[in-house]
């Protein structure tokens, strides 16, 4: 609180009365995020629970969600504009709704896949119990399905919010030719400050964002996480301090939940028919570790068709000299380099520090914040330090590449880091004891124990990180120079951002389909099989 006051007075000194605007911006952004989150909750539970229980939903809806999650946020932008801005022309409402929609698209996938994952917690015992107790209709939802998903749902929500903050800039400050979104909000403030190289203002913007992120984490997510851990089906040792009394917020949510279940209880008879028809019953829950492959191959094929259509018939100039392939190659190399860097430092950190409580206590909030800082906000620093300073020595193109890789890193490394930390922390204590009893040295401990133990997390993290990296490439390949024009940095992300600014829809669709393909194909052919293979090594 004291820090907040200090920060605010400093901001006031630096910016004058504009500082009040900042509070207003933060408020507006928060409302937008919260609305998008409310949508995400609704969306995630409806489709998540359907996918867990309904075979058709699993076969058809799940693959569609999987493809959609691979679509970069700018790919949704034309639809948002078409749908919301054109339905509510002129006013703020259309812009506001499209912005919420875009935040939703960067937030919801983590939540919906978390809910789907929670299906694996519905053990055969729980299923039998629900059958014996004749829990069906809404009763099955309120007493079994919703509470059981809480642990995964909360951690998915935290990731989702992180993604939302990261793309807040893009969701509040966007242009498609003449159609613009420029809304009063923290993201737009950060973007404007960054693009006009106002270092002070973008710094103030980031700190304001940091306050929001920390406050949410401290007052909202941490208490909920503690609560969720107690809901876990697997026996967990609850820490002594986690047993501490529930905060006011958690109690409020609990009361809200029980009135919600009482409300649903009134529709029990009707809901039973509907949910039976949708086959959302205790008889039909199954755990899905992977997307069914047939439908996802078909969908990938459709994306490929779209890609070739736009390439050959709409923008054939990009097919000549294989320009598009050189874009692809350049983007892929940047992402791979960033991935290598990310894997290197995150695995070192996880292997050596993840079980060190003191280090983690200090570093975790820092990482959470790092995940939430939008890449755009470090533009000015990057441009000034890397491009102008380093650029004089190694030449502008090389400096640009370095800057771009660093930006991709900001959207990529956290997925790997969080997965790896969790994996190292989840190694059972007795396994660690064995390594002590056997007098294993550091090297053999790494070789026989730690590295095999984190492999599943490496693959899952890679899958998420590379998706995140592609999304970040939109920003990272579109660096604005102090003159206000973007640097020349050929790549797919660059193509996408440029086309979007110029209002070239064909270019947008081409780049989006291409990026989506480049996410989907390795997912299906490399990462998913590796993840499945590595499940053998799960504890």
């Amino acid at each position: 609180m004291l820090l907040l006051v200090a920060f605010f007075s400093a901001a006031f000194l630096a910016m004058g009365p504009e500082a009040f605007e900042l509070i207003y911006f933060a408020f507006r952004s928060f409302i937008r995020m919260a609305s998008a989150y409310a949508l995400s909750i609704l969306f995630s539970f409806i489709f998540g629970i359907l996918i867990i229980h309904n075979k058709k939903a699993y076969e058809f809806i799940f693959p569609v969600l999987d493809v959609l999650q691979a679509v970069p946020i700018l790919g949704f932008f034309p639809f948002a504009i078409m749908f919301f801005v054109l339905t509510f022309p002129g006013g703020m409402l259309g812009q506001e709704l499209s912005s919420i929609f875009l935040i939703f698209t960067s937030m919801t996938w983590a939540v919906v896949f978390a809910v789907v994952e929670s299906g694996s917690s519905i053990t055969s015992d729980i299923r039998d119990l629900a059958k014996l107790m004749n829990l069906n209709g809404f009763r099955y939802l309120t007493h079994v399905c919703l509470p059981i998903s809480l642990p995964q749902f909360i951690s998915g929500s935290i990731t989702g919010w992180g993604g939302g903050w990261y793309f807040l800039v893009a969701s509040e400050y966007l242009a498609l030719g003449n159609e613009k979104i420029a809304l009063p909000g923290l993201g737009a403030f950060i973007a404007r400050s960054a693009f006009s190289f106002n270092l002070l203002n973008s710094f103030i913007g980031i700190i304001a964002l940091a306050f929001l992120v920390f406050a949410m984490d401290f007052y909202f997510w941490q208490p909920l996480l503690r609560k969720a851990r107690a809901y876990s089906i697997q026996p967990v040792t609850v820490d002594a301090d986690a047993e501490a009394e529930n905060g006011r917020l958690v109690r409020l949510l609990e009361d809200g939940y029980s009135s919600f279940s009482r409300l649903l209880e009134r529709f029990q008879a009707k809901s039973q028919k509907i949910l039976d028809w949708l086959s959302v019953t205790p008889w039909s829950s199954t755990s899905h570790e992977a997307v069914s492959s047939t439908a996802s191959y078909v969908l990938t094929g459709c994306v490929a068709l779209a890609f070739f259509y736009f390439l050959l018939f709409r923008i054939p100039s990009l097919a000549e000299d294989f320009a598009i392939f050189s874009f692809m190659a350049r983007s892929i190399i940047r992402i791979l380099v960033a991935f290598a860097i990310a894997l290197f430092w995150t695995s070192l950190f996880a292997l050596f520090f993840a079980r060190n409580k003191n280090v983690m206590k200090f570093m975790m909030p820092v990482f959470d914040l790092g995940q939430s800082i939008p890449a755009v906000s470090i533009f000015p620093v990057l441009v000034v330090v890397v491009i102008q300073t380093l650029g004089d020595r190694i030449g502008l193109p090389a400096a640009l590449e370095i800057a771009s890789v660093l930006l991709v890193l900001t959207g990529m490394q956290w997925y790997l880091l969080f997965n790896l930390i969790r994996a190292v922390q989840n190694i059972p204590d007795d396994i660690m004891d064995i390594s002590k009893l056997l007098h294993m040295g550091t090297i053999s401990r790494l070789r026989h124990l730690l590295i095999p133990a984190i492999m599943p997390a490496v693959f899952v993290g890679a899958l998420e990180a590379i998706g995140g990296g592609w999304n970040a490439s939109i920003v990272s390949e579109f660096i604005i120079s102090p003159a206000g024009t973007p640097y020349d940095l050929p790549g797919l992300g660059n193509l996408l951002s440029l086309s979007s600014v110029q209002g070239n829809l064909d270019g947008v669709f081409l780049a989006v389909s291409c990026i989506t393909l480049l996410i989907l194909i390795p997912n299906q052919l490399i990462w998913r099989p590796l993840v499945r293979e590595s499940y053998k090594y799960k504890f």
Partner: protein
Amino acid sequence: MELRLKDVSKTYVVEGKVIPAIEDISLKITKRESIAVVGPSGCGKTTLLRIIAGLEKPTAGGLFFHGKPIAGPDPRIMMVFQNFALLPWKSVRENVELALITRPPEERRNLALKYLAAVGLNGFEDNYPRDLSSGMKQRVGIARALCREPDILVLDEPFASLDPLTARNLQNEILRYYQNRKMKPDVFLLITHNVQEAVYMADRIIVLSQRPGHIKADLRIDLEKPKDMRSRKFQDYVDEITSLIT
């Protein structure tokens, strides 16, 4: 009280292969009695129990309860789980109330408290399962089953997750409870792989063969109560049944 199983068989299909679990099981339970089903591991004991509880349908044959076929879980048949199956987000009382979900709140609460007291858990109503020892968790599981006042209570290896001392205590309490002839259930059907436990708990023992399980013996335990585990007769029963299984 009448439960009849007529030529009940169950086969599973695992990766294209048909695996028979139990075969031609016929059984008649007509009076108040305590029954134990024993057999080597993998002989289909649990399958048999799940069929009786209505959780699975037999592939052939039929089940009749009071003359009517059983199709799905019946409120008059309740089950106790090996690993308790308590919901971690519900307090002890709420876990028991779950079995009474269709009743009005007031009645639900009173019945739950009554049966929690019956299993010796008064004072723990508002605790959560994670606060309890495994013996107490199983008591909650038993209270949850009893509060429906079922005719038949099936117990799937209810003592296997407990330490020997806790298990013995709970067994004695269940026997004491069951001796009160006015109380439900009329029949308790215990699945176990522990022969001593079966002889101690049951008046009638059904021995299943290796997979596919069929009834190898159906015998009556004729011992004076309370049973003395060290008596010669008790040991003879244990030896006889053990030799049937191995």
